């Protein structure tokens, strides 16, 4: 097991390092001249040169990359091009807001999708199964902001007016206000996740239903309810739980558009603003942090999976 953990950790770190190189290259080689960008057209060439020198962008690329990475691993992502404040000042609260929204979405999604998946598996091939499977997959391909816009029309200010359509910063708001204001964005994210988690739950349950231990349990005379709760669900849902954590990365992709739609300044919103004003230190920090979140989530999922299934950790790793 330890060998497997080390192996996964190393592979993940290599990928993260490569990612940091690629995004750094993309963001640094191409914009050319931040001094000109920040100071504007009217600035003198000397002022631009001085500005660039202070930023250190006149040094060779590998030196700058090493410097940036060295600081980044210690949690220092530099300062905004625009106002000189440390990037982390805005990054940390934004990440906390997004985490809150993400956890909320998962809490809404997981019980319903597992229930739907198990229901589909128990009615395999019948209309209910097709409805849940096809419906779930269809929801999964609709962009989050489209679901958000439709939800706002139906449940938000459009018709029923049950929930607000704009979240805002929610600074110092009570937990109840937060849950109320973020219900629609969380529901939009949850609907997108629903199809995938339901499909995993369905597959896991079907596998357990077909397994020999289920047949044995049935043949030895256990009631159907006991067969399901003690044997089928306990075995069938373990992989689903492991897979859920790998969906965190997927969720964070959807958070960008959802946070823009609802005006909720999380990390997706921050990424977008940084990109629009070309504040590259912030943009890089956001992308890297999203990469780290994905890395931790995938690693957790893989390790859970390995802990649950000896074939994964002992057998062929491909």
């Amino acid at each position, binding site marked *: 097991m330890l060998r497997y953990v080390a192996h996964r950790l190393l592979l993940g770190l290599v990928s*993260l390092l490569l990612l940091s190189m690629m995004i750094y290259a993309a963001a640094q080689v191409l914009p050319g001249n931040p001094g000109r960008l920040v100071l504007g057209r009217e600035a003198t060439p000397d002022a631009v040169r001085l500005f660039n020198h202070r930023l250190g962008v006149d040094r060779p690329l590998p030196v700058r990359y090493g410097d940036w990475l060295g600081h980044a691993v210690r949690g220092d992502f530099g300062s905004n091009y625009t106002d000189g404040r440390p990037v982390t000042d805005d990054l940390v609260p934004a990440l906390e807001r997004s985490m809150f929204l993400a956890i909320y979405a998962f809490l809404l999604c997981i019980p319903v999708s597992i229930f739907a998946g198990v229901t589909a598996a128990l009615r395999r091939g019948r209309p209910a199964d097709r409805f849940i499977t096809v419906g779930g997959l269809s929801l999964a391909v609709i*962009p989050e902001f489209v679901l958000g816009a439709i939800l706002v029309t139906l449940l938000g200010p459009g018709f029923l007016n049950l929930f607000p359509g704009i979240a805002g910063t929610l600074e110092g708001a009570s937990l109840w206000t937060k849950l109320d204001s973020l219900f629609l964005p969380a529901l939009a994210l949850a609907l997108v996740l629903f199809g995938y988690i339901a499909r995993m739950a369905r597959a896991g349950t079907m596998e357990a239903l077909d397994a020999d231990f289920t047949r044995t349990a049935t043949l030895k005379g256990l009631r159907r309810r006991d067969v399901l709760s003690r044997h089928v669900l306990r075995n069938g849902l373990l992989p689903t739980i492991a897979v859920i954590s790998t969906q965190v990365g997927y969720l964070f*992709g959807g958070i960008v558009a959802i946070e823009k739609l609802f005006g909720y300044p999380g990390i997706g919103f921050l990424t977008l603003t940084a990109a629009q004003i070309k504040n590259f230190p912030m943009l890089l920090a956001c992308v890297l942090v999203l990469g780290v979140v994905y890395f931790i989530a995938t690693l957790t999922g893989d390790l859970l999976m390995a802990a649950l299934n000896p074939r994964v950790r002992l057998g062929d790793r491909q």
Partner: protein
Amino acid sequence: MTVVGGDMPQVPVVVEGAPPLTSQPLDTPQRIRREMVRQILHSRLFVVGTVLLLFWIFCAFFGSHIAPYDAIDDSFSPSYHAPTWAHPFGMDRVGRDVFSRVIVGARSVIAVAPAATALGVTLGSVLGLVMGYFGGTVDNVIGRIVDAVLAVPFIVLSILVLTALSAGSEGISVSPLKLIMVIGIAFTPIVARTVRSAVLAERDLDYVQAAKLRGEGSLYIMLFEILPNVMGPIVVEATVRLGYAVFAVATLAFVGYGPQPPSPDWGLQIADQYADVTLAWWAIVFPALAIASLVVGINLIADSVQQVLEP
């Protein structure tokens, strides 16, 4: 899908008591293919999906001819008029007919998504063939790069690259060509991963060994022996990717990386009118339903193709 070793000479095998080999075996590649196409066409979901997709493609090509009003011109009406018989989807902030804008808005999505998918599937298939066939170091190195790219949400990666690409200009400038390139390249690793695992399953089969013994080159084996046998997963992946390409184009347009006002693009319409959702829900919900119907239509096609090709 071709049957294994379809182009090899038929060697007559005589088995005691077995009926003689007929010159027309039952399962010719053509027959299998025809049967699969028949099964796909008979799926009700496939028909629904195809109708939706064809409808929007038709709108993309002829939208400006069939739309009752001009999609851009705002010179005639009051703002935010609720739906009426003359304007079934109502009017937007500056008095444009939302119905016409939804019809014409199909164009900017249909112009980008299929081309981006084609690019991504082609590059991804090549990469996946190389990774799966050669394995070893090539596979490992490319695999790590693929993992790194996949670690960032696709939308975030596209935003980063599109921002970097418009670094020289003020603001963000995104052309359809840039979108096709960025989405296509971002899809490449995902497709490559699927094709790679399909190739791994084929690589050690006898027909590949036979081709190697015949002295065929790697390129020939990859393109003419393995590729026809992994077409099933590639076709499935392509239909799934097309749905996600529409997803990506719409989302990028919504966050400002796409057509600019006054374009009737769906994502842009939603971004543009959302602040006034309390005043005029019709200005955002109809473009939203348009996007939803297109992606769901493509997804129904993808699902029925998958049911038949990968049961």
